[in-house]
């Protein structure tokens, strides 16, 4: 006999109905709205030094570039059977890379409006994940089995490469991605347009070493792969006979003061502190260092490529001009006045409403990946199948993306680090400006050495 539940009085029932109705309304609203975000670009409330607008001002020549240049038949909308591509991207509170596939999608939209791939439009299926391995594996299967994608372009995830790499290998997908996890750079089936945390940190450490510091403190966020990432800077420091201190911090950081003090103490007055964090965390550390008056207590500060955003430059004050040196794995949009860069800005403006970060390395990466994919797809004759499309991806060789220091190749090697040449930038009153031009990452890093022994050293990209 069940114990009788008391009948809820009227007022309570009404309240229950309200709460339920609210829940349903919210769910319905959620279903009807696409996951669009309010376009926020981050300037801090107190920065008065920079009068620059929050997105980098576009050079006048942007208007001269028509977006129709992205496709082969300007103005002709593609109407054939779509070519399905897929992407898996991390999107959780505090970490969201959705700008990258969203920009790729913008590029595809432009191509679709201007001839498509031989008349076929590209349809990009984007799966978001919250760093849950089961979810990531399921997303991969969804893309392959339900959405029938023939290629993967635009993956950007903290752990997806680790979780799915054997799956992709088994099925024969050659991925074009923006890598983070070790497997993005150490497996035959993934080639990234960016350098990833390890090689970008290599670049930052390399620059610090070139300035003759006598000690390096390398601090990174405690996300998967810290050992793998740390091995690069360790090798570089060892080869230069400079001691290196390896630190990790749990993110999100709630006590930036002690982090900054610790780093500065360990580095010493002629040392360098090199950070590998996402922009918000790096900003918190650097601002704490400034508040405590510590920024001049070391010779220089370095940061891997996530710091390369105008948001950061604006949020930090002028004290960091020529004090903070950030590795830039893509050509800086503010000072590069090439056709491709202007095309990127134009496409972003016209088709990139879902790209909330505006001009910056995230959308640049998305653009580059889409560019490579379209270039490869244009070379496919016959049907667009998993075999033909991925063979085309793998055959990409010495392609000038217009966004990188070097020409980009996929190839059939056992590992891929095609972007291994980068520049260094420093904040200058609210913008990032070049401090050192394109420089190769040293082969002292064993993985770089291994890749170069297989693939050789790519030629520098001519400005286009």
């Amino acid at each position, binding site marked *: 006999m069940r114990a009788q539940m008391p009948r809820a009085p009227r007022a*309570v029932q009404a*309240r229950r109905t309200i709460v339920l109705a609210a829940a349903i309304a919210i769910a319905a609203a959620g279903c009807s709205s696409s996951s669009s*975000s*309010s376009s*926020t*670009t*981050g*300037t*801090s*409330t*107190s*920065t008065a030094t920079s009068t620059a607008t929050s997105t980098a001002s576009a050079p006048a020549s942007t208007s001269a570039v028509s977006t129709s240049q992205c496709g082969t038949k300007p103005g002709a909308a593609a109407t054939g059977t779509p070519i399905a591509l897929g992407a898996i991207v991390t*999107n959780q*509170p*505090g*970490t*969201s*890379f*959705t*700008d990258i596939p969203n920009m790729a999608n913008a590029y595809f939209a432009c191509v679709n409006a201007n001839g498509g791939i031989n008349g076929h439009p590209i349809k990009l299926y984007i799966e978001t994940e919250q760093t849950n391995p089961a979810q990531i594996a399921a997303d991969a299967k969804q893309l392959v089995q339900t959405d029938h994608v023939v290629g993967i372009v635009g993956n950007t995830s903290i752990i997806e490469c680790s979780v799915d790499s054997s799956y992709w290998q088994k099925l024969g997908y050659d991925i074009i991605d923006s890598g983070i996890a070790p497997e993005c750079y150490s497996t035959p089936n993934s080639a990234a347009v960016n350098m990833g945390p390890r090689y970008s940190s290599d670049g930052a450490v390399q620059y610090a070493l070139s300035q003759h510091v006598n000690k390096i403190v390398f601090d990174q966020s405690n996300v998967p792969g810290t050992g793998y990432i740390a091995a690069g800077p360790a090798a570089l420091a060892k080869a230069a006979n400079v001691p290196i201190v390896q630190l*990790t911090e*749990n993110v*999100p*950081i*709630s*006590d*930036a*003061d*002690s982090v900054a*003090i*610790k780093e500065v*103490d360990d580095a010493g007055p002629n040392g360098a502190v090199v950070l590998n964090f*996402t*922009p*918000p965390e*790096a*900003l*918190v550390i650097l*601002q704490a260092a400034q*508040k*405590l*008056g510590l920024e001049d207590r070391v010779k220089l500060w370095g940061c891997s490529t*996530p710091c390369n*955003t105008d*948001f*950061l430059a604006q*949020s930090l004050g002028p004290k960091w001009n020529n004090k903070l040196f950030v590795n830039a794995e893509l050509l800086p949009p503010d000072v590069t006045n090439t056709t491709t860069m202007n095309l990127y800005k134009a496409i972003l403006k016209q088709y990139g409403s879902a*790209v*909330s*970060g*505006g001009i*910056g*390395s*995230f*959308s640049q990466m998305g653009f580059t990946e889409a560019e490579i994919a379209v270039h490869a797809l244009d070379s496919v004759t016959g049907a667009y199948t998993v075999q033909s499309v991925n063979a085309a991806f793998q055959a990409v060789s010495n392609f000038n993306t217009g966004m990188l220091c070097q020409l980009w190749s996929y190839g059939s090697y056992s590992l891929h680090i095609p972007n291994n040449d980068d520049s260094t930038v420093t904040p200058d009153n609210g913008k990032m400006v070049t401090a050192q031009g394109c420089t190769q990452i040293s082969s002292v890093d064993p993985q770089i050495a291994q890749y170069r022994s297989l693939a050789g050293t790519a030629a520098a990209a001519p400005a286009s």
Partner: protein
Amino acid sequence: MPPWSDFEPFIVSGLALGGVYALSGVGLVVLYRATGVLYLAFGAVGAMGALIAWSLGRENVPGWLTWLVCIAAAAVITLGYGLIFGPALAKRDPLVKAVATIGLTLILYGLMDLLWTSSGGQARSESLPTDNGGFSIGQIQVDWTQVIALAAGVVITVGTGVFLRYTKLGTAMRAMANDREITATLGVPVRKVEAAAWLGCGVLAGVAGLLLADLAALDATTLTFLVISSLAAVLIARLRSITLTFAAAILIGLLHDLLTPITALSNYQNMTPFVLAAAGLLVMSRRRVMTQSREEA
């Protein structure tokens, strides 16, 4: 063991961190004393207010106005919650009331990530004018915001202690937190007192949110779940003594930072609040069973 001079700078930063924990912790205990609710949404409400202030600041609204809006927003949300769900849960166990505030936390947390997304690699930061001044202790600079945070903690501790004990409204609040029905029969205007308590809640949360957004980070996740670490101080004070909460929070912050130079332990320093709370509670409960019943307000 590193030499003493290595520890010195961390004393200052530890006090600052302790100030951060104290602000949250004292706020929580004050609210508990006044309403009987452990307001776990304290951090989330403050974060929401701070984010609203940030958004307004980008639209060139003057700073002082954004702070007022932040505090007002926090007050409105808290008052709304208190008026809608306070009476419904008034007779329930403090545990139930605390779990209900978890509901509010989740709602706010989801809303914040929807409205202020983290895509595009944005770095939001909140700066107060008091950041740009200060003084140095030894080699470390202390800025006025940190001093204000500590001072705010002290003021709230002393002020609300006095308020709750010596004023009529404060006594009414304590009585209501203890037993709402009996207090009502004694002729206390229960709804008004309740509203006042929740309003005070909200204002505190707003002020704390603004300060913490400056001192810690303007990030929804950090600010929302900072309460978990502040709960340690609250637990050590057994949810009763505001002064003890303040002292415990300072101690936790100090200890946390002082562990930094000790390389063997520095990886585990984030455990400090949890270990201290667990140890403190277990030590205090060894003689008797600890119940949190309505009688222990």
